[in-house]
């Protein structure tokens, strides 16, 4: 445990913290400006991919549940409570 904590501390000092500082300092060089169109529309498209992925997974799961657990499914079997009244 101590070893993991020690490695984490070293990594944080050598890699993570300088990376954060580098990222926070981005855009300070004169003449080099980000294109907000690229950033904002890029974010929009990435989030749309996430939104549609979640929508697909959730709706797909609901469709699967409804089909798989309908009473008329040949694979359907009652739970112990439904079959034997065990609680």
């Amino acid at each position, binding site marked *: 445990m101590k070893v993991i904590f020690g490695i984490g501390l070293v990594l944080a000092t050598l890699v993570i913290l300088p990376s954060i500082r580098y990222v926070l300092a981005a*855009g300070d060089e*004169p003449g080099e400006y*980000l294109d*907000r169109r690229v*950033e904002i*529309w890029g*974010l929009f498209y990435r989030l749309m991919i996430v939104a549609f992925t*979640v929508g697909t997974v959730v709706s797909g799961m609901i469709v699967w549940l409804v089909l798989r657990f309908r009473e008329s499914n040949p694979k359907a079997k009652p739970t112990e409570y439904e079959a034997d009244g065990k609680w």
Partner: protein
Amino acid sequence: MRLMESGKMSGHSTWPEWVYIGVVVALLCYVGAEAWNVERIVEHVPADAEIIKVTGQQWLWTFEHEDGTKEIGELHVEKGKAYKFEITSKDVIHSFNIHDYVVLLDAVPGRVNTVWFSPGEAGEYPIQCREYCGLIHYNMRATLFVEDKGA
């Protein structure tokens, strides 16, 4: 032992549910982190950005450059430079929008809102009020002229 107490009430394995919850929570964390990061990057104003004071009033836009030059209904800027807009209003709430450069911020009386951009391509771009501000709101427009350096 009761089924509920033994954890068998559902009659099936629950690990897929935990995977499902984990994936959704991870995606939500990703959405929040990405949005926060992009907002932080976009709002970081370059130190050498030139300030342009933007004033909205029914129903026109007025611009004032750092050197005191004033423009009404037109804004001339240089390609490749950074500009910081200080936006306010004289009467009601307006919204300053340069659609082609994804600049959109409310102009509120008694308050100065700031947004910055750097035009990358020469040309003419429409500026439009995006907050209904009265009868002629639809025509509260201006034109952004992005000019090559030294033009």
